[in-house]
């Protein structure tokens, strides 16, 4: 990180990431934006406790996650799941029409247990290391690894992928290889 952007600018720069993570947690635009707003307000008043030189994004994600779970725990599990699935359909953006594959994937992701989905997204999409993800979730690194692994197994089941041959020719293999370096390295 170079220079010292004002807290406002620093937070503004993280907004897309905050919203994406909030969407991943809530599966619903309105609830996601409420969660972002609450997170921003908490972050603002706690900004003095942010250690410069560490990851602002990780710090904000931790706040968001804690905020989310403190309200989310009150809800019953079945309600979450049904909501999550319904919400998954709402996430569809116009840009994705014609990407049947991706629509299936989105629905499958929404049916994952929350802790698995969260771990998968932190490590596989948000670019955090396993160590950072563990810190954000307040659990052991091994727990994150095992959640990510179970998330992938579950996705395979839902998407009925039994072998790599089921995938067909994949035009995005370069990106996929790249990604594999990130998420594929679980021993």
């Amino acid at each position, binding site marked *: 990180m170079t220079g010292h952007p*004002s*807290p*406002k600018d620093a*937070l*503004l720069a993280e*907004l*897309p*990431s905050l*919203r*994406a993570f909030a969407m*991943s947690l809530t599966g619903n635009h309105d609830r996601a*934006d409420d969660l*972002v*707003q609450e997170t*921003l*307000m908490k972050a*603002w*008043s706690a*900004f*003095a406790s*942010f*250690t*410069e030189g560490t990851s602002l994004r990780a710090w904000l994600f931790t706040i968001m996650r804690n905020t989310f779970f403190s309200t989310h725990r009150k809800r019953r599990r079945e309600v979450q799941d049904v909501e999550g699935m319904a919400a998954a359909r709402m*996430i569809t*953006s116009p*840009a*994705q029409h014609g990407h049947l594959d*991706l629509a299936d*994937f*989105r629905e499958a*992701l929404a049916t994952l247990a929350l802790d698995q989905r969260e771990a*998968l*997204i932190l490590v*596989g*999409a*948000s670019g955090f290391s396993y160590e950072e993800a563990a810190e954000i979730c307040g659990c*052991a690194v*091994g*727990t994150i*690894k*095992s959640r990510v*692994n*179970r998330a*992938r*197994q579950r*996705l*395979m089941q839902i998407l009925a*992928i039994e*072998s*790599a041959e089921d*995938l067909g020719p*994949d035009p*995005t293999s370069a*990106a*996929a*290889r790249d*990604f*594999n370096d990130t*998420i*594929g390295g679980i021993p």
Partner: protein
Amino acid sequence: MVRVPGGRPIESRPPPTEWKSPPMSQDPADPKSPALDPRIQAHLGDQLRRLYADMLAEPVPDRFKTLLDQLERVEPPAAPPKEGPR
């Protein structure tokens, strides 16, 4: 082929006790999860990143900029300590 009305073919399914679901490991050190084919991992990872990139690309509503403007005016930010005091 003999069909029993309302019944199931008798020999085609193993006794239910055979069907043990794999234990949901709570032990992070448990090495038992089977490794995924790297190509499948890559495929899942690619899908996940595309989905996430979509979310990142969404325009940020003005309400958040407005909120931060207000916060800056009303409650000037407490600066983080320049050096860790520890």
